[in-house]
């Protein structure tokens, strides 16, 4: 299973890459495999002010629909617009394809995210 050590994770299969005060957020390789071919992404509005757990976006595969949640609180400062035309990028490389960037308002929340080891235990159950 592809679960990079340098990322943090949520129980709802989002990954987070921290760069300074910015959190890059995507969905995990496990999630994209479960969903199958991804055909549609609904991205958040720029400047959205989200609390951890709020809906960040929606991902739709041929057969399934799943919400993407904000793993941490903050302001949406970037969205990956390439996904509007090429949602399949997530299938091709889930960890190289972030969905949105959140400028964190409470960086302490990082500590409550899952480590790679913990996430691995979750999905291998």
């Amino acid at each position, binding site marked *: 299973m592809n679960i990079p050590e340098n990322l943090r994770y949520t129980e709802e299969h989002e990954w987070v890459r921290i760069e300074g005060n910015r959190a890059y957020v995507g969905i995990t390789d496990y999630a994209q495999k479960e969903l199958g071919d991804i055909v549609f992404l609904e991205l958040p509005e720029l400047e959205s002010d989200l609390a951890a757990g709020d809906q960040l976006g*929606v991902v739709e595969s041929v057969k399934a629909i799943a919400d993407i949640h904000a793993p941490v609180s903050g302001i949406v400062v970037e969205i990956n617009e390439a996904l509007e035309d090429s949602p399949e990028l997530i*299938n091709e490389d889930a960890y190289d394809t972030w969905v949105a960037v959140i400028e964190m308002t409470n960086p302490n929340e990082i500590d409550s995210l899952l480590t790679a080891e913990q996430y691995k235990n979750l999905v291998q159950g």
Partner: protein
Amino acid sequence: MIPLSLKRTPLYAQHLAHNAKMVDFAGWDMPIEYTGIIAEHHQVRRAAGLFDVSHMGEILITGSQAEDMVQLLVTTDIAKLQDCQVAYTVMCNENGGVIDDLLVYKYSRHKFLLVVNAANTQKDLDWIKQHKVPDCEVADVSEQLAVIAIQGPKAEEILQPLCATDLGGLKLFCFDPTSIVAGRRALVSRTGYTGEHGFEIYLAPADAVHVWQELLRQGGSEIAPAGLGARDTLRFEAKLPLYGQELGPDITPLEAGLDWCVHLHKPEFIGQEALQQQAANGPKRLLVEFEMLERGIPRSGYPVQKSGQEIGYVTTGYHSPTLNKAIGLALIAAEFAQPGETIDIVVRNRAIPAQIGRGLFYVPAYRRRKKSKK
């Protein structure tokens, strides 16, 4: 909730060997996809796909009055079928609502094979037995038959070297009840559920693995297994209805646009009066094709609105892999069922505009006019 035991087709181990993602489909452990729904979808449109549809139910009706009995059950005038012809048709309840859609294989006036949806097999069997006429036998032969569908422009080329039937001479919706495929006895029909040329092969469960493997070997790189996921996107794109979505006990075939398989003035059938009346008054709801005008994917059950008022719901919607656009089918109030009419599809509480059309969908390969050479 995991059902105690899912049924397995004879090809179960083959699906696992091809790394299928398996799902519970109507109580059967079935392959939803192998390499991916979209890849399998394109494989069938481009070359050929192999489907295990052994979960389908098969009901045999035999006896001197068999034709009269089937005639009473379905909306199509099956007296007009030749021997070894197949009809796509529906069974209705007294109100004209659809109990199931099915294929009727006519061996002769005394023998018919009904191929029904897996989820409805028991319900259909009960209904059919309720309407049994004297001197007719009704038998559930589902367990005695495996079914393999080979579909796509290369299907005939792949199947022919393995098949005793002259496939070029087998017309659309016709079958050979005494064919041989890869050395095994089989019924072969030119039928399918993908909008492509193709065949369905009915055979003894014990022969299914051999025939499946031989077809894959014969087809080489031109064929691959395809799962129920691609089967659904393919049938949808070709605008073929699915029971439970476009059809159901509260939807009549006239509402679903299946007028062509309702012979209102044939000898008596169940639902005839209700359907005659509906045809005379005009259905209050109709199934329409639509295309999204803005980003969003329509899904089964999404409400359809006009000027903020709910006028119906989406029966099936997808991002169409072949046409590369979001399209859907919806059952809406008849007054709005006009090509060009704009409607709204409610996606996650947002009304997204769509336009009703005609001919938006994929034209099945077997319905295309041959291009004349100039």
